């Protein structure tokens, strides 16, 4: 298996194992991370929100040069955000990050002409 295929398989496996079950919760109405459509019937005057966490809003110090540090930082992040229930993703995501780091991916100097660069 070539390395690109291997990476795609890893991401797909992660997606199926962790993302799809969480998405099922979205479908079941048990989870939502953002509103998808306006509710124009609601008597809501404002969509403004208060910032969620002060330390994430202004600045924070991380040490992030190893898989272990990444995992710990992710767990802390989700603790601050009140998302402890997705902690189990941290180890797998950190492992994926380590995998891609080892592949020494070079960033393209091009921006996608069709979508605002946001990932």
């Amino acid at each position, binding site marked *: 298996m070539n390395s690109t295929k291997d990476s795609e398989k890893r991401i797909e496996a992660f997606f199926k194992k962790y993302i799809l079950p969480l998405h099922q919760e979205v479908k079941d109405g048990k*989870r939502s991370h953002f509103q*998808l459509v306006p509710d124009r019937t609601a008597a809501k005057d404002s969509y*403004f929100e208060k910032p969620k966490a002060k330390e994430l809003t202004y*600045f924070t110090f991380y040490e992030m040069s190893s898989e272990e540090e990444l995992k710990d930082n992710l767990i802390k992040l989700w603790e601050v955000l009140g998302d402890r229930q997705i902690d189990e993703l941290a180890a797998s995501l950190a492992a994926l990050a380590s995998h891609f780091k080892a592949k020494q*991916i070079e960033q393209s*100097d091009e921006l996608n002409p069709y*979508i605002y660069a*946001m990932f």
Partner: protein
Amino acid sequence: MSKYILGISAFYHDSAACIIKDNVIIAAAQEERFSRKKHDPRFPFNAINYCLEEAFIEPEEIELICFYDNPLLTWDRVVKNAVMVGEAGLDVFQKALPSVLGIKVWVEDYVKKALGTLNENQKILYSGHHASHAASAFFPSPFKEAAIITVDGVGEWSTTTIGYGNDTSMEILSEINYPHSLGLLYSAFTYYCGFRVNSGEYKLMGLAPYGKPKYVDLILDNLIDLKEDGSYILNMDYFGYLESLTTTNDNFHRLFEGPPRQPESRITQREMDLAASIQRVIEIAVIRIGKTAQKLTGSKNLVMAGGVALNCVANGKLQKEKIFDNIWVQPAAGDAGGALGAALIGAHLHYKIPRNPMVEKGKDSQSGSLLGPKFSDQEIKAFLDRNDYPYGEMPDPKEKYQVLASHLDEGKIIGFFAGRMEFGPRALGARSIIGDARNAAMQSKMNLKIKYRESFRPFAPSVLEEDCQKYFDFDEASPYMLMVAPVHKDRLKNLDNKREETDNLIELINEERSDIPAVTHVDYSARIQTVNGEYNKPYFDLISAFKETTDSSVIVNTSFNVRGEPIVCTPNDAYVCLMRTEMDILVLENFILYKEKQPEFIDKLNWKDTYELD
């Protein structure tokens, strides 16, 4: 002991670096200027090197490294976006993850590579993306306290924030989060109208005055629920970016009754009307957000940053509303300015260093945004001699500016290269192509023979600050070309022309609308740069000499580059640009080069292919 703080922005749009010494901005530059790749998103190794050279320090003398956003929060967004979308999002997830996980989270590795190493005392501070924008707007501003608005596509989760800055403190009070975004909404129309997202937004703004805002209600009824306080939610049924790599989807195309315009195809009335409509919606939103910001903070001053703050038409409308007495917009309002904001967060929020003393005088500390490399006469002479390029020397400034003023009066187009390069997307007279604003053929000539870009795109005037009100209905300073205002009514022509709805852009463009036609846009507006001797003496002296010669104190100023190319940085970049275009004259500090006297230029690159159309 002084603290040197390095600010870095990277990986998304315009990567950049900046270095500050306590509360003084020593240097700042975008990576694209060195790599020659427009909007270069890669880690800014070259810009960091430049900043260290300019500060004349070794890497180990840096006290703190500040990165302009929090990659873990972006990670969090990517994961939760996938959770919301499910199966449909696998493709985007597969494309995003290698880049997000393999590159963007390993900032520390990149910093070590750039600096050689990090010693045990050197830490990396990760600032919030919108906090970086907010800091870049407030801390260098001339205000002791101010309301702060940031609006962009998205940074981590936030897309719009309202905050308040006072002395060395800053607080974000309210925000709107992804996927709801005015920047992404504007980008959706940019794409739909056939322009490149991430760079074509400025074109859409330039196209808007040619159209009628006939789709405003359609947009407000279907795409965005905009509240009276300026807060909003997009209807994601019409956008593709949650689960695909295009901004709009079929519902969007059905709503506007057609597919997106193909890039480079003919621009029709439909695109003009779409541009006018989304521009109007953005203006309504920005004004409402401004009112809320004033209400929340009670301040008479406003500062702004984020990519949407580069929408100088909206800025001009906001200014005209007089919600605030004073408005200051960070000249590097996009992601490049995040490097500066991050460093200033390090200085003021982390180290509690006092503000720059300029604020006591009511002046900004951005130094005219002339924060990039400068080249000495010795360096330029060596470059010219080494290459055997014919040149003249003009050591006497008065004589130099008189000669240049005469050439402008003759209709010549001049590449003007003087002093430190600008930080931010606008050329402000340090790396500018200039011409006579009174010349009716100038806009078309500059667009088609110099810039090789669409003929509808307007040019900006540089005007002596003291004469601004003679030419424009605008009574403020606008040194960073971030405000659009009407041309003074006494200067307008052909006001009675009845404009039928027409697809013929050329007909509209060639209409002479004022006695400064080259800078008068189709709606009789202009994107003004006011020039004074304090910020940019050479440029001020040049325009003053033009005024002495012609009695006109307005010239055309456009960035020193061709379409798709970053603004020139070095004398060599400038020379190559001279030879690739029909520019007449190049001025490199005290040296003048006439195109007609130059040897045949053998271009090593097929540059029209090298620089992708923007």
